[in-house]
């Protein structure tokens, strides 16, 4: 199914086969507007891009002002292509409605991949991707782990928006507590120890907490749990590309819950605990100046701490740290938010759509345009926020010029060494499960979240280890079932007989 072409320049001469542009429309709602159409039937210029006046639609989750500017830049490069875009409100609903109405977007990104794969919304873009030399200089896990390929030989999607998980430390708290700042290439154990050391309770007023969290530590631990030699983890819940092993997750889950139960973790916003600690129901721990370590989304820095005057207002001095690994390894994987984007199977101009996808996501030209926008803080979104503070992602290209520009958007004072070390350490992203593992969300929905495992373990009424065997069995089943459903004969039909048999064996074993 995967076909390669030598150069994108040849693309214009090609008549795209069904695989690249629509495939078998049966069962694909996204194909409803393009039945039997093999793709671009118009004229192509020397660069392989159509000379027809066309419109491409892009649906996304980004700041709409940013995409307005990027769309303008793209249209300057391709004057015959008009780009229309909109923010997705609810992925499943919006896309199914669009499929039914025959106005499916040409390019879209999603917050989970199961929806797109189950409905065959994304086309195989391997031809374009493989032939594009720019793609040789991306963060290595994209290729090593087949991020966007979903354990098949075809590429259906690419990471469009990348935010690594991040640990942040408030240097002011560390100083107040007479602690030492840890080394930036710290280990997991060193982080846990700092969380414990920085939890100080003088039995008067507000205590200092070691940790404030947005991301649970078990999510981070799942990637950081062992050396690659022990198990090559390439996804959450101990996923190694073939199957799951939740024993790794269980260690992190229990460790995190034990920290919570023992009082090392700050209360969450809008809780009675927060009201008792800070006096206000809606206080955010990140603005108290009494939390040392934060397990946060990377965007928290941009959206809040990175805003001009914010840290000064709350007496903070925030620097980033990489999410550590259990082994003392300089370069290791880091769990990441990665919105995946692809070209729709219904798209009539898949090559042009690929170019748009790349421009809006990881392409160097698109990132040059982004940097122009982000560096000009007079450009603001509807909320009046400079665009670099509004959902700015991180490049996945390793292009040096892009990275120099990107890094210049962050503090250049004595915090710069922390940022430099952080950026150097996040080149091996591994997406959260729902972005890149088929059936992951089904597993969470049908088993993990349904039982409420986090709540039970956090309350101390259950141990994470109790769930390892059954959860592993369930995860493997849901993954295997999804692989057959999405990529077997009833779906994209790209699995070999051997692969099908392996997945079927897992399903059969579960159902026995």
């Amino acid at each position, binding site marked *: 199914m995967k076909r390669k072409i030598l150069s994108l320049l040849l693309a214009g001469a090609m008549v795209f086969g069904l695989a690249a542009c629509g495939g078998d429309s049966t069962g694909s709602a996204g194909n409803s507007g393009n039945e039997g159409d093999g793709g671009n039937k118009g004229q192509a210029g020397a660069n392989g891009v159509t000379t027809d006046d066309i419109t491409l639609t892009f649906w996304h989750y980004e700041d709409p002002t940013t995409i307005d500017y990027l769309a303008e830049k793209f249209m300057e490069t391709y004057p015959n292509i008009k780009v229309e875009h909109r923010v997705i409100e609810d992925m499943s609903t919006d896309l199914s409605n669009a499929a039914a109405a025959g106005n499916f977007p040409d390019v879209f990104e999603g917050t989970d991949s199961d929806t797109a794969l189950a409905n065959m919304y994304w086309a195989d873009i391997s031809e374009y991707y493989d032939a594009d030399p720019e793609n040789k200089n991306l963060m290595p896990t994209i290729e090593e782990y087949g991020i966007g390929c979903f354990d098949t030989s075809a590429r259906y999607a690419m990471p469009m928006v990348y935010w690594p998980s991040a640990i942040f430390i408030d240097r002011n708290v560390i100083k107040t507590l007479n602690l030492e700042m840890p080394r930036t290439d710290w280990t997991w154990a060193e982080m846990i120890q700092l969380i414990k050391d920085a939890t100080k309770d003088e039995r008067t007023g507000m205590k200092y907490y070691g940790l404030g969290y947005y991301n649970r530590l078990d999510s981070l631990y799942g990637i950081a749990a062992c050396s690659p030699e022990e198990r090559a983890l390439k996804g959450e819940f101990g996923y190694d590309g073939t199957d799951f092993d939740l024993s790794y997750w269980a260690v992190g889950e229990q460790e995190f819950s034990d920290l919570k139960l023992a009082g090392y973790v700050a209360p969450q916003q809008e809780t009675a605990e927060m009201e*008792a*600690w800070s*006096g206000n129901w809606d206080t955010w721990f990140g603005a108290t100046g009494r939390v040392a370590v934060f397990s946060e989304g990377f965007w928290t820095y941009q959206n809040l701490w990175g805003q001009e005057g914010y840290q000064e207002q709350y007496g903070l001095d925030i620097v980033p740290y990489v999410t550590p690994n259990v082994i003392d390894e300089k370069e290791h994987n880091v769990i990441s938010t990665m919105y995946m984007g692809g070209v729709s199977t219904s798209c009539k101009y898949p090559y042009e759509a690929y170019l748009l996808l790349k421009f809006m996501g990881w392409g160097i030209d698109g990132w040059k345009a982004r940097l122009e926008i982000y560096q000009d803080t007079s450009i603001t979104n509807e909320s009046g926020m400079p665009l670099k503070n509004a959902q700015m992602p991180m490049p996945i290209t390793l292009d040096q010029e892009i990275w120099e520009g990107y890094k210049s958007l962050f503090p250049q004072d004595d915090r710069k060494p922390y940022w430099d070390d952080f950026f150097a350490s996040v080149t091996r992203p591994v997406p959260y499960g729902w972005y890149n593992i088929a059936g992951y969300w089904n597993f969470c929905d049908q088993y993990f979240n349904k039982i409420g495992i986090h709540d039970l373990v956090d309350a101390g009424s259950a141990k994470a280890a109790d769930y390892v065997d059954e959860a592993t069995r369930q995860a493997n089943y849901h993954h295997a079932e999804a692989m057959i459903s999405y990529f077997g004969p009833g779906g994209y039909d790209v699995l070999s007989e051997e692969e099908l048999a392996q997945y079927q064996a897992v399903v059969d074993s579960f159902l026995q």
Partner: protein
Amino acid sequence: MKKKILALFLSTAMTAAMLSACGNNNEGASGSDSTKQTLEPSSESTPETTPKPSQESSEQEPAQAEELPAPKYYFSFDEADGAAGITPTAKGAGEVIEPAGKEVVFIPGVKGEAVYIDGTYGLRLDEVNGVGDTYSLSFWMYANRNANYMPTTQFGPDVHGDATGGQHYLNITWADWSGSSEFPCIWSYDQNAEGSPWPQWYPETADTHLNQWINITLVVDPSKMSEDGQFINPDLYVNGECVSDKKPVNIISGTMAPSDNFDFLLGVNYWDAMLKGAFDELYIFDTALTAGQAKTLYEAGDPTVAYNPPERVVEVTVAENALETIGNTDLNAGFWTDWTSAYEIPNGVTKVFKLNNFSSGLELFHNYVMVFTNEASEAHTDPNTASDSHREWAAVRADAYGWTPETNPIPDSAFTWTWGNWESWKTVSMVDADVTIEVKREDNILNITAHNVDYNGLDNLMTAKVETAMTADDPCYMLFTCEGSYVELMAVEDGVDIKADPDAKETLGTTTFGLGWWAEFTNGIELKEGESKTVKLNNYSSGVENWHNYVIAFTNTQTTADKVPGADNYEGYAEYAVVRADAYGWGDASYAATFENSWEDWNVWKDAMRDVEVTMVITRNGSEIVIDTTLVDRKGNEMTSKATVTSTLTADAPCYFFFTGEQAFIELMSVE
């Protein structure tokens, strides 16, 4: 409270201004004249401010205040009007609301006074009933806290579904459907309607509107329907401005249908966290207001009024049913001046102590103290005088502090505590706390878990692992003493130690309660017409929620434990009824149920269900299934319940039942 129903007379010079989307139900078009009019309120009129004409030109003419019709209900929430018909109401254990036994509290509001609620209770407006599908609701509110689905106003003909078996309500609430919490979200539900519609709406701009006075007006006109004809599209105004013009609000019909079971609730419902804040100027009209009238309601209030919640007053109440009390209600008892009896702590056994703790709030140590000794001693007698061989193994205070003869003080590392602010722990939580202490002795180690639950429901958890000089063979007793406090010992019980029974025919879940909803099932058992079956279960519950127990489902198909019951796995599968242990259920189109329970206190029931032997006699007769249940808890107490369920089941139809549950460990012992 005397309901003020005032006709609101405004200037006769007023002309309705028209909005293109909201409130466009008046004759006449917007005109330039309308923007030039001012209002001269009459002496009886409620609005006390004069709307200012807009100085801006826009495509939509701003609404101008208009005369209000006579409301069907009006609550000024002024102290002078009294509190009749306003009942402080709290969410009880499980899905119940009940009178909170509190007084209505008034604080300054946007106009006169407002009613204040402190987060431990809301308000029920007892006399309010439905006024029909055409209605308008308006109120002012100041929210000091929010949470997902926390109600501001929630109302309906059968909010909890007690009368009809189906919930039917509208809730103006917070939700994070857009990705972040925001207000006002509109959520309505009609469980009995076809498809059980549950439309929800959230605003375009994320804002919780916390800590500010805000005016909400919802105008429901059933002639304004969604394109598919399924929902009513009401107009929603926030501070007099329409917010539903760009994105229609969908609600189901009948949310204001009159009913004998009508609830009109403020800041409380059957399920969610309770609001802390204030309400003011609540109107219910049986007409659809115009945009101008919505503006009038907003302009009648002053949102700049300072929010001044009252200081909390703790009343030390004496429980007549306490086993023992120590200290005194003046909260000035000195240390080591009063003691409870000493209770044996056998090795390897968990003992549970329940206390009411009232503290002076002046010092961290003005609370209960646990003392572990080697011998029994009598109440109010210094245990040190019990005998010459008296030994003290350890003493542990509520504030995670203690000592042993060998180690004084016990190091902090032996303790954990979840509270983060000792000042609020001392002055807010412990001044009136419900305390549950579990003590488990393992040879020379004392493992202590103390849940100190404050008036707000906040569980301040303290654990201690204390190493003592006693040996496994030494006797160990525990007594309480106190300082600067009054402590009531309410109960002394054996803890729950779950031991899986090897004779169980089938089990659901794990002993750590890892049972998800609709995740595990027993095999289906046939129940023939006229037949009675006696079922015995052991039910262990996590005790967190009422529904964390066994559930019985009646179906038309014999199911097996290895497949999820449903049409996907069983052709023609249908459920007649599903009945939970906590006297709650649902079923097919003809489902109806009555429940009779011997218990009144759901907290007692919930605690019993943590370890209970269940005997159910299930009888089928025509369309009726009767479940007679006897519960015997770990203390030997017996409770009974009877559920009578009707459905589409007929005498000649097949009928089977199976058990499932949630966050429980269930052993099916026998079916006869």
